[in-house]
């Protein structure tokens, strides 16, 4: 199966290891991974701030770049949701791109239908990123009364030695929120610190998540506060556990 990797701009520039781990994982499960080099950004930073007109050319570019591929996989719930839920559907090619774009965990869980086996002897706190959870429905979430499910957690379930810690608020926002992180930095950081405290109380050594942007914000706070916790993209964790 041929898969085109859509690597969000901030992953490309700041967390290449998460992108490489995603590629590694996909290859290990039989996919031929392509990285179309013309890609840049889905336009979320502009769209999230309300600049829809500025974001539109980037949607066009995304359509063009990924046109030759049948599957587009992205190691970010937020950027995947941008394509699936926020691209202007009246633009030519957008519907087709929406239909074939999946977040990495979603792709592993729903399309490749894998349940990774491996070993990762650590206490891990799972951070549910909001857009993955509530816009892509990677999990049932705490608000709605629906049968519980959690695709990200399901991928971690078969990993030996991995202990998922209990959180008091399993799906509260970390406070990143794109431009919110800087326009409301006081509240953003308070939210992040509260999330970290929850993971600490649960005894986590590692905070794992499917969105590097949330983790970048949490990592920034952890490093500033000199805390021993570290952050890992779920792809990195799975790549390491199943190596």
């Amino acid at each position, binding site marked *: 199966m041929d898969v085109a990797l859509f690597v969000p701009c901030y*992953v490309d*520039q700041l967390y290449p290891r998460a992108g490489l781990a995603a590629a590694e994982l996909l290859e290990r499960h039989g996919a031929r991974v392509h990285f179309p080099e013309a890609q840049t950004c889905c336009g979320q930073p502009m769209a999230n701030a309300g*600049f829809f007109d500025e974001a539109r050319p980037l949607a066009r570019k995304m359509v063009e770049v990924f046109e030759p591929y049948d599957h587009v996989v992205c190691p970010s719930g937020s950027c995947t949701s941008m394509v699936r839920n926020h691209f202007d559907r009246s633009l030519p090619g957008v519907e087709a791109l929406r239909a074939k774009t999946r977040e990495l965990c979603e792709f592993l869980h729903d399309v490749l239908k894998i349940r990774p086996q491996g070993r990762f002897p650590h206490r891990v706190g799972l951070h549910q990123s909001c857009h993955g959870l*509530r816009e892509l429905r990677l999990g049932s979430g705490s608000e709605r009364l629906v049968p519980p499910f959690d695709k990200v957690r399901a991928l971690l379930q078969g990993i030996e030695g991995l202990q998922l810690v209990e959180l008091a608020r399993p799906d509260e926002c970390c406070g990143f929120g794109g431009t919110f992180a800087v326009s409301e930095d*006081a509240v953003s*950081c308070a939210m992040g610190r509260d999330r970290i405290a929850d993971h600490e109380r649960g005894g986590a050594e590692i905070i794992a998540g499917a969105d590097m942007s949330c983790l970048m914000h949490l990592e920034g706070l952890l490093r500033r506060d000199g805390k021993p916790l570290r952050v890992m993209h779920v792809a990195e964790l799975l790549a390491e556990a199943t190596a």
Partner: protein
Amino acid sequence: MTHPEKAAAFVANDARMHWHDQAVWFVRQKRDVARAAVPEWEELRSLASQIKAHALSRLADYLEQFEKNAVAAGAQVHWARDADEHNRIVHELLAARGVTRLVKSKSMLTEECHLNPYLEKHGIEVVDTDLGERIVQFRREPPSHIVMPAIHLRKEEIGELFHDKLGTPAGLSDPKQLTEAARGHLRAKFLAAQAGLTGVNFAIAETGGVVVCTNEGNADLGTSLPPIHIACMGVEKIVPRLRDLGVFLRLLARSATGQPITTYTSHFHGPRRGGELHIVIVDHGRSRILGREEYRNSLKCIRCAACMNTCPVFRRSGGHSYGVTVPGPIGSVLAPHIDASKHQGLPFASSLCGSCTDVCPVRIDLHQQLLAWRGELAARGLVPLGKRVAAKVGAFVLARTWLYRLAGMLARRFLPLIPPRWHAWGRQRDLPPMPRESFREQWRKRAGSR
């Protein structure tokens, strides 16, 4: 002050912020428990949303039907275009009957219209009889939450306030004793009142009746003792039939406080014997929202405040940081309709986590509406110049792969050299350790080595 400034001030008192967050989160948790006892919860939400959608789709017809039936039941119906007209109508009703002492039960509409200061200016004593509302009225401040108006205050602060206003012993902070003191104080006000004013939770077109949901019984006392009852409602409070009410009553209190139902659900069909019932129907910007498809859903709101209780920003910034009567996600969606330029910061006072949308009992797509507002504010040039420039520059760079690569490389080199205090990211957070090579550079090498 802008929302970020007021929020930063609230966050700066770490103990209070955390206490507020916990207190409000506790209510969200109570809501979760109450909701879990209703297996058809999601279906109820859909039904409620559809009933409201239907009612809004023929709002004018239902309002006229309501008026006809309310008048037939003996009520008098008044129409107010906006807050000023509403205040004038209420004042004229009171003045014509020589009323100088009015008791009120909780009504966010009258808060929105700033009725209290208007009436006080005209020499009428207005006493809010909901305990939380009375507390904030004593403090001369607006409610910070639409269901729990004094949630921003600790019991010790209320003890001090009551010591000052009601003469309770200094240092008293026992909630039961403080409530007893307020009861005694309010009882005298009820007995002396010449008219009672309530809000309206639901107005039933089919019967012409209005329904008021309270927990303290103050609405009932305020409408049973004095002979004149004035009920003020926004146009969107209409439900078509009496039997629709069951859907909303099952959702409202569970979403608001985690109670299966409010302690009192009072139905008013016409005035009590020998009394008068006046119903004031207020537009105040609502028909403008009705005319705008992308925002229309927000008129379905039943003011349960579940979106506030679940909002991680509201819990950490406090209701007063929004600077409007209805704060939180729904308030941030509604306020810009009244004055987009004044409230341009509110749609940005959200991380767009979407919890509000999933918690809303009438399925308002709240975080999508916040995003829609961001788009509209940007399009109308109502966002700060810096943001506009950043968006233009960002879009220009990102549209060109070579330029993006260059910018990325430069950012990785030079961002760490900027003193962290100079940018909002760095005030409290470190930048990530900058990798020497981007993903795409490493990917190329990886492909080359295979």
